[in-house]
C-alpha cells in the first residue's frame, strides 16, 4: 500500500512538469505584451526605453529557458513570485480569493450530494416508472442547462419574488465577508452560486448513482438478501448503496476538481471576486506569473483529487488492493 502511494505521488511529478511546460509556452504564444497593456492604460505614446525598463523590471528580457527554470523552481519551492499586473505577491492575491472559491465549491458539492444520492437511489429502485423518468429528465436537464443561465434565472427570480413580497428589489450582498464573521451575509451571498453550480454537478452524480445501483441490485448477494426475506429498504440501504458508491465517489471527486473551471463562468454571472474571475482577468492582462500559478493550482488540485479518489477505492471496496 505504501509502495503504491509513493509510486502514485512520484508519477504526479511528470504530469505537473508537463503541465508547467504546456502553460508556460501556451502563455508566451499569446500575442500581446503586459508592459504595453500596463503602460497604455495611461494613454499616450509609450517610449521604447520605458517599455524596455518595464521588461527588465518584470524579468521578461531574460532568455526563455531562464524564465522557465525560475518558474519551475519557484513552483516546487512554493515561491510563485509577484503578479506582473498588480505587483503584489501571487500568494496574497490568490489567498484573498481562494477562500471564496473554496467555500462555493464545497457548498456546491454538498448541494450536489444531497440532491444526487437520494434521487439516484429512488430512480434506480423505481426503474422505468414515471418517477424514474422524471428524475432522469431532471438530471439530464441539469447537464444541459448552462450554469450561467441558471445563475441569470436565479437572479431574476430573486428580483421578482423580493419585489412581489417586500415591495422592493433585493439583491445578494456584493462584498464578501468570511463565514465566521457574518454567517448571514456570507451565506446570503454565496448560496446562489452554490445552487447554480451544485445543480449541474448533481446531475452527473445522480446518473452515476442510478446506473451503479442498478448494476449492484442485479448482483447475487442482493438476490440472497432478498431470498432470506430482508426488507427491501434494508437491502438497498445496507447492501447495495454502499457498494454502488464507488463510481459515484469518482465522479464527485473528478467534478470537484473541475468545479474550479466551472466557477470561471459562474463567478462572472454573480460578480464574485473569486479565482475564476482572477483567472479570466490575468489571461486577458497577459499576467504570466499569475496565470501560471493559477493553472498549476488547478492542475495540482486535480492530480491530488484523483489520487485521493484512488485511495478511497481501496477503502470502499476491500477487493481492490494496490500492492503492485
Amino acid at each position, binding site marked *: 500500500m505504501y509502495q503504491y502511494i509513493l509510486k502514485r505521488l512520484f508519477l504526479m511529478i*511528470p*504530469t505537473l512538469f*508537463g*503541465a508547467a511546460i*504546456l*502553460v508556460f509556452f*501556451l*502563455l508566451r*504564444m*499569446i*500575442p500581446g505584451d503586459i508592459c504595453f497593456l500596463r503602460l497604455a492604460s495611461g494613454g499616450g505614446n509609450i517610449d521604447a526605453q520605458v517599455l524596455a525598463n518595464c521588461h527588465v523590471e518584470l524579468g521578461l528580457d531574460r532568455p526563455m529557458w531562464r524564465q522557465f527554470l525560475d518558474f519551475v523552481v519557484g513552483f516546487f519551492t512554493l515561491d510563485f513570485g509577484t503578479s506582473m499586473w498588480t505587483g503584489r505577491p501571487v500568494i496574497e492575491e490568490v489567498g484573498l480569493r481562494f477562500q471564496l472559491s473554496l467555500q462555493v465549491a464545497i457548498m456546491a458539492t454538498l448541494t450536489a450530494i444531497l440532491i444526487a444520492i437520494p434521487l439516484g437511489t429512488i430512480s434506480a429502485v423505481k426503474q422505468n416508472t414515471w418517477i424514474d*423518468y422524471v428524475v*432522469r*429528465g431532471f438530471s*439530464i*436537464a441539469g*447537464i*444541459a*442547462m*448552462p450554469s*450561467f*443561465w441558471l445563475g*441569470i*434565472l436565479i*437572479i*431574476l427570480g430573486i*428580483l*421578482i419574488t423580493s419585489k412581489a413580497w417586500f415591495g422592493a*428589489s433585493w439583491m445578494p450582498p456584493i462584498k464578501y465577508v468570511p463565514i465566521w464573521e457574518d454567517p448571514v451575509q456570507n451565506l446570503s451571498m454565496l448560496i446562489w452560486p452554490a445552487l447554480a453550480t451544485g445543480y449541474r454537478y448533481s446531475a452527473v452524480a445522480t446518473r452515476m448513482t442510478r446506473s451503479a445501483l442498478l448494476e449492484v441490485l442485479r448482483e447475487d448477494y442482493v438476490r440472497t438478501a432478498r431470498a432470506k426475506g430482508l426488507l427491501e429498504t434494508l437491502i438497498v440501504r445496507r447492501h447495495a448503496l454502499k457498494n454502488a458508491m464507488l463510481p459515484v465517489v469518482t465522479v464527485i471527486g473528478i467534478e470537484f*476538481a*473541475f468545479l*474550479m*473551471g*466551472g466557477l*470561471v*463562468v459562474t463567478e*462572472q*454571472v454573480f460578480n464574485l471576486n473569486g479565482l475564476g474571475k482572477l*483567472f*479570466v482577468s490575468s*489571461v*486577458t492582462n497577459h499576467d504570466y506569473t499569475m496565470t501560471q500559478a493559477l*493553472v498549476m493550482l*488547478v*492542475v495540482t488540485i*486535480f*492530480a491530488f483529487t484523483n489520487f485521493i479518489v484512488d485511495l478511497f477505492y481501496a477503502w470502499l471496496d476491500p477487493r481492490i488492493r494496490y500492492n503492485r
Partner: protein
Amino acid sequence: MAIVTDTVITDTDETPRRSRLTQLGQFARRNPLGAAGGIIVLVMMVMAAFADWITLYEPTANDFSVMHEPPNAAHWLGTDQFGRDVYTRIVYGARTALLVGFASAFIGATVGLVLGVGSAYFGGKIDLIFQRVMDVFMAFPLIIMALAVVSIFGTGVMNVIIAITIPFIPRAARVVRSSALAIREIPYIDAARTCGFSHARIILRHMVPNVMAPFLIIVTAAVGQAILIEASLSYLGLGVQEPTPAWGLMLRGGAEEYAESAPWMAIFPGLAISLAVFGFNLFGDALRDALDPKLRSQ
C-alpha cells in the same frame, strides 16, 4: 415467465424481416427519451437549414423603433436592446451552435480516434509516453484549456471551433484507446501482421472500423458539450462576436442588464441552449444503449 420466453422467440423470428422503419419505431418504443432527443436534434437541424424561410426579419438588422418589445404578434419572442427580433436570432443561432458543435466534436473525436488506436496498436513505450502526454492535457478543465487557446488564436467562430476541438482530442483518444486495446488482442490482428500488412493498413482497415461504436457515442456526447462550451465562451465575450447570432452571446450584456424589465431576452436564448444540449444528450444516451452490448438490457 412464459410471456418473457414468448417475446424472445418472436423477436428472433422477426429479426431478418424487420424494415428500417419498424426498427426505428422499436428504438423509439424502447427509448422514449432517446426518441424525444432525436426529435429535438432534428427540429434544430431543420431550423438551421431553413432559417431564411421560417423567419421574417434579418438576424442582424437593428430597428430602434421596437427596442425591448415584449413578445407579441409581430415579434413572437420579443426584441432586444437594438430592436432585433429574438426569435430570428435564436433560429439563426442554431446554425452557429450546430456548426461549432458538429465541427469540433467530429474533428476532435476523429483525431482522438487515430491517436488512440495508434497508441493502443503500438503499445509499449510509445503508449506509455502518449498516455502521460494525454494526462497533462486532461489535467486542464475543458473551459480553461479552451480559454487559453482562444486567447492565442483570438475570437470568432473558426477559432472557437479550434479552441473546443483541442481539449476534446485527449478525451476521445482515451476512450478509443481502451476499446482498441481489447481489439489488439484478437487473433485477426496477429493474422494481419503475419500477412505483412503495413501499420497504417492494420490501424485504418482492421482496427478503426471496430471502434466505431465508441467513436459514434463520443461524437454525439461531444456535440452537446461543445454547444455548451461555445455558449459559455461567447457569454464571457471570448467566443463568437457580435453581430453574429449566437445563443451564448445573446445572454451577454443586454440580457443581464435588462433581466428585470425584459426577461424574454434572458429566458429564450438560454432555453434554446438547454433544449439543444438536452436533445443531444438524450439521443447520445440512447445511442450508447443501442450500440454498447454491455449496457444493453437483456
